[in-house]
């Protein structure tokens, strides 16, 4: 039980996919200007990422490994993720056009969100079983959403600040992201405590 807890805590905080692994920076910077979009993107990514880890585990274990096709991992994972993203986009477009509007270009971009590809690959390299994979995927997704939402909150506030001209926009956002990563270093070592 504690083992699973450590995987989850590790994925959410200690090895946060954005701030520690530095994956998925594109949506992290792109969709964090407003809290609402951050909520939407977080939810969409959580869904896609969890689905993707599950699907890729199944593909890997029941299709690729039995036929000795491990070298096709990246390719087949990308295809799977792309399909899941497409499906998600269609569902969102139907159910919530405003969310689709606000997410804009970033929804299809989940396809190329390296976090979504990275997490299933990390699962394989960590040798996780199905439940562990799902937990790790969900944990990473929660970590991503958490950080995205907190970041959006800070950016909304910083937008009103007298940031020096040369640092407005992405520059100060990068500085903020750096300081956030610094704060997250405080979690270092927590997943190794026995």
């Amino acid at each position, binding site marked *: 039980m504690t083992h699973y807890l450590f995987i989850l805590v590790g994925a959410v905080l200690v090895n946060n996919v954005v701030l520690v692994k530095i994956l998925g920076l594109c949506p992290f910077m792109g969709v964090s200007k407003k809290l609402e979009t951050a909520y939407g993107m977080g939810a969409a990514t959580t869904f896609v990422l969890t689905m993707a880890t599950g699907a890729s585990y199944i*593909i890997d274990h029941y*299709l690729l490994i039995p*036929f*000795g*096709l491990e070298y*096709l991992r990246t*390719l*087949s994972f990308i*295809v*799977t993720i792309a*399909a899941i993203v*497409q*499906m998600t986009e*269609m*569902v969102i*477009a*139907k159910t919530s*056009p405003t969310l689709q*509007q606000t997410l*804009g*270009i970033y929804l299809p971009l989940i396809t190329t969100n390296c976090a979504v590809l990275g997490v299933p690959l990390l699962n394989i390299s960590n040798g996780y079983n199905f439940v562990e994979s799902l937990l790790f995927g969900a944990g990473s997704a929660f970590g991503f959403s958490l950080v995205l939402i907190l970041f959006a909150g800070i950016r909304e506030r910083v937008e009103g600040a007298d940031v020096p001209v040369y640092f407005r926009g992405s520059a100060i956002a990068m500085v903020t992201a750096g300081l956030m990563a610094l704060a997250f270093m405080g979690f270092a070592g927590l997943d190794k405590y026995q």
Partner: protein
Amino acid sequence: MDILLAIAIMALGAVVLGAALGFASVKFKVEGDPLVEKIEGILPQTQCGQCGFPGCKPYAEAIAKGEVDINLCPPGGMEGVQKLADLLGREVKELEAEEKPKQVAIIDENTCIGCTLCIQACPVDAIVGAAKQMHTIIAPLCTGCELCLPPCPVECIRMEAIGENLDNWKWKYPVIEIKTEMRKAAPMMKAA
């Protein structure tokens, strides 16, 4: 052999996923373009045609299709361009024409001959009158589009900038230099 197997498996995957996507695209089909409405919401609805389109909606449609630039609407001003740029994720561009202050058309009622030409030209029904009778502008409805100017045969319509009055007066953004203002008031009391 291996390569054939790989191709077969990938093809199988492609077929399965393709079928799923195809099904979804039918099941979750969306009609209409919500973007046009959003763009139209930003446009000022003066219907002036200065953008080269007959009204705001056609311009909105053209923007949504990506056929034209977003800086063709002088009544919307730079603020409008900024909003469009934010909505569409495009670059902010300087306005094509210069920005004018808000204005209202005024008919010189002594000169008006009652030809109804301006009434027909007004896109927003802001002019009232009948044939051979004096016309007048319903000022609150006028968008200041100037479309009534050219058709008037006697040139009795002029545009006037809407000045500040107690109804549309706005509190200004606070400034720090409060002291200078007070000093200005000083001589007035001395005179008294």
